[in-house]
């Protein structure tokens, strides 16, 4: 594999890597026909992110040396990130970035060609595994949840970025949902702990539906997910002025399992998908939390070194499997009509806040995210066809 990134795209690539680094510690690089895919999954298997850079993103793109198989590899995120550590430096001095994967000596080589003829061999990374591209179902064939779709206007993406600014650095999760008056709400999530003496500040951002190019949702639906990962993707979407769309489902009548939320950013040259697990309950209206889901199932922890068991594609297959099981749920959907006008009242603050009756705190929710969709329900019939030949033994990291 050999590809050449030039000009402003080097910084875009760098930003994407920064975004991915917020999620996982290992990066899977795979040159496909429709572009270079960079993927990662977090250690608890509750978040997955993927960027696909189209061939046109590159000045030159060669997925495989002619006559040879295309190779994909897995490397330490830290090593690859080191190349793009200082985005300011990258923007100012780097003119071209050349990435090549050499199967013979199992090296991923990144070269930065800087201004004034300076050439920096930014990294001779030793991937922990280099494999031929196995014929697996494509990651992008994952089922898209459809009951709630939010597509904020570009201006709002940066507003969302600002909205998460005041959230305390220690805050782990946020809740996103549709409140009364069809306003989209993003709120800091507080765990209910009865013995908490010092309460934390609750911050909520409310955005009207006129700020969304598409808003297909029912009032009252909400999901809760990890803030750190969300921040990573917002930063990227903001900076690259890309369109963002958010898709999620809500637990249905027949199956209460929470579904992951998909955040997709897109333009003509690249495609990014962040899939984040959601907590098993979310309710915007009251702090009472319903324990809907059965106790968390123990999931297998695959050996991180063994690519065959740790195949990211098999995780995506697992997602498709889940979808089939729950396929027959009733899915609520209300389409957004462009002619809708917001009410003429002076402000969206609801004046009856101070007269809201006190609500008894409900049982605390299970703290962990469901990570069902990664690994644990992988049916034998869907596992990848035998271990692929390993071309390079895993190493301890960069040489």
């Amino acid at each position, binding site marked *: 594999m050999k590809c050449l990134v030039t000009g402003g795209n080097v910084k875009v690539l760098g930003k994407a890597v920064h975004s991915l680094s917020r999620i996982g510690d290992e990066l899977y690089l795979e040159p496909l026909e429709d572009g270079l895919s960079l993927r990662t999954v977090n250690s608890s298997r509750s978040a997955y992110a993927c960027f696909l850079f189209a061939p046109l993103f590159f000045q030159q793109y060669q997925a495989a040396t002619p006559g040879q198989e295309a190779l994909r590899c897995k490397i330490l995120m830290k090593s690859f990130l080191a190349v793009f550590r200082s985005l300011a430096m990258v923007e100012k001095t780097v003119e071209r970035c050349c990435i090549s994967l050499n199967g013979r000596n199992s090296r991923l080589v990144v070269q930065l060609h800087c201004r004034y003829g300076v050439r920096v061999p930014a990294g001779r990374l030793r991937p922990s595994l280099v494999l031929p591209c196995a014929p697996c179902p494509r990651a992008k064939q994952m089922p898209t949840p459809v009951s709630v779709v939010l597509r904020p206007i570009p201006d709002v993406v940066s507003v969302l970025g600002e909205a998460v600014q005041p959230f305390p650095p220690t805050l782990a999760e946020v809740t996103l949902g549709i409140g009364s008056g069809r306003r989209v709400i993003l709120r800091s999530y507080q765990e209910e702990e009865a013995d908490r003496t010092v*309460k934390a500040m*609750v911050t909520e*951002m*409310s955005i009207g539906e006129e700020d969304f190019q598409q808003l297909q949702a029912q009032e009252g639906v909400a999901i809760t997910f990890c803030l750190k990962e969300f921040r990573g993707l917002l930063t990227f979407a903001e900076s690259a002025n890309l369109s963002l769309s958010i898709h999620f489902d809500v637990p249905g009548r027949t199956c209460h399992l929470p579904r992951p939320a998909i955040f997709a950013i897109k333009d003509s040259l690249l495609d990014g998908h962040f899939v984040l697990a959601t907590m098993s309950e979310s309710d915007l209206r009251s702090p009472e939390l319903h324990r809907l889901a059965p106790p968390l199932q123990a999931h297998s922890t695959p050996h991180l070194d063994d690519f065959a068991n740790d195949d990211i594609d098999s995780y995506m297959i697992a997602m498709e499997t889940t979808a089939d099981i729950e396929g027959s749920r009733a899915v609520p959907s209300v389409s957004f009509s462009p002619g809708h006008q917001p009410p003429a009242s002076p402000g969206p*603050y609801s004046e009856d*806040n*101070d007269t809201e009756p006190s*609500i008894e705190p409900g049982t605390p929710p299970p703290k962990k995210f469901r990570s069902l969709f990664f690994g644990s329900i992988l049916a034998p019939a869907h596992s990848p066809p035998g271990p692929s030949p390993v071309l390079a033994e895993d190493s301890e990291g960069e040489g």
Partner: protein
Amino acid sequence: MPHWAPVNLPAAFLLHSITPGVSNMIAKLAKTCTLRISPDKLNFILSDKVANGGVSMWCELEQENFFSEFQMEGVSAENNEIYLELTSENLSRALKTAQNARALKIKLTNKHFPCLTVSIELLSVSNSSRVVTHDIPIRVIPRKLWKDLQEPTVPDADVSIYLPVLKTMKSIVEKMKNISNHLIIEANLNGELNLKIETELVCVTTHFKDLGNPPSASEDASQARNPEQMAEVRIDIRRLLQFLAGQQVNPTKAVCNIMSNKIVHFDLLHEDVSLQYFIPAFS
């Protein structure tokens, strides 16, 4: 909530000009502080508890300089005040969002727990309304504790002097902190101020000259005192540093009052906000 009942709470005000600067400063000076709301003023108060190292703070804003609308109702007609305790950082974080605000509203509410709800309507290009709401948890302070939260009386100072540029003072004190835990601040009526640290091995003094002294309240006292004579207080250097760290902008007016061996009193004016900070002598 047992403490909630007697206080009648809607106090709603709209900020006309938003100054997150005040709340940032308070957040640097005190982790937890008391907010006192009265019909014409807002005060941020830190009372001199052992936990603070005896330091106390009194910050005052005239409400008419900040709010286009201000309504409040205190405990009773005679005690038309509200005293709340909150975590300062929450307020400064909440007001940070207000920098791009079209309108800001602060209200006392009781959503699940008593809070100061800050509602900010953000500026936006279109007609769309984007609102950020912060619910800052508060504790209402019962009337019987109000006496500990009154404006400190300032005894007559031995020396009053105008302070040098605070940023300069801060960088000096920061370096001195590495050498000693205590610092002597001394000044005289000749416009001279010294910051001194003494250890077994070394003494370091920084001299500021020509600072000027504010006109004295009582003529007799100032004439009786030898202008060269220094009044000094030995204080905990970290308290001084904490005070200086809170001053991001150089104030309009900055006076230092020294009561020999007792207390040093900083009296600052930042445009419409007055701040008094007291550091007692280290005993």
